């Protein structure tokens, strides 16, 4: 499969704790993106990290990328109940149609108040 794979499949934490989700992929990429999906809704883009970048921040989000290990992590600091959602990584493969994304199966994050 060319999809990314998120780990863990489900994560349950208390408000204020940090949440870390991981993503592994199998091929060379142009970039890796993280998306969020509230139950029954469309996906919302969170952050994009290019293949020549190692770390990126956006608000409470921190993304790392290790192309040698073909893996990425998404850290949400000081989580809130409103962060409860599914989180997906998606990769744009080098040599593939530009804009074509390969999605993983997602991590279901539950943040308890």
């Amino acid at each position, binding site marked *: 499969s060319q*999809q990314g794979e998120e780990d863990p499949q489900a994560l349950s934490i208390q408000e204020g704790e940090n949440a870390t989700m991981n993503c592994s992929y199998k091929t060379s990429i142009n970039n890796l993106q993280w998306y969020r999906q509230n139950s029954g809704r*469309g996906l919302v883009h969170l952050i994009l990290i290019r293949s020549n970048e190692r770390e990126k921040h956006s608000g409470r989000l921190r993304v790392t990328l290790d192309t040698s290990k073909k893996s990425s992590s998404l850290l949400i600091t000081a989580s809130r109940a409103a962060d409860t959602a599914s989180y997906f990584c998606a990769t744009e493969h080098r040599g593939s149609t*530009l*804009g074509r994304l390969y999605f993983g199966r997602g991590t279901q994050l539950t943040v308890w108040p």
Partner: protein
Amino acid sequence: SQTIHQWPATLVQPVGSPLSLECTVEGTSNPNLYWYRQAAGRGLQLLFYSVGIGQISSEVPQNLSASRPQDRQFILSSKKLLLSDSGFYLCAWSSGFGGADTEAFFGQGTRLTVV
């Protein structure tokens, strides 16, 4: 600003009936357009993508077809629905001018139940 509209939000159709889901994008031109399907608890499977009017690429063989009659309109169709066509269908667009490193913007999805 750009917006994407997808309808209907939910749909219950009998087996063997036709299907037409519509997606339109506003505020941009020449977008790349995508139809995804998401099974319960699973990731997104790309069904079709289009880089221009009348240009459709299919990712997987299936009972569905797609058309792009206008620059910002993308339609997902079936002549006869199967039970296995049930799922959550998402339309998305990305910039056709951005080259690599462009994000995708998703519609709110259509929950299709074939009975």
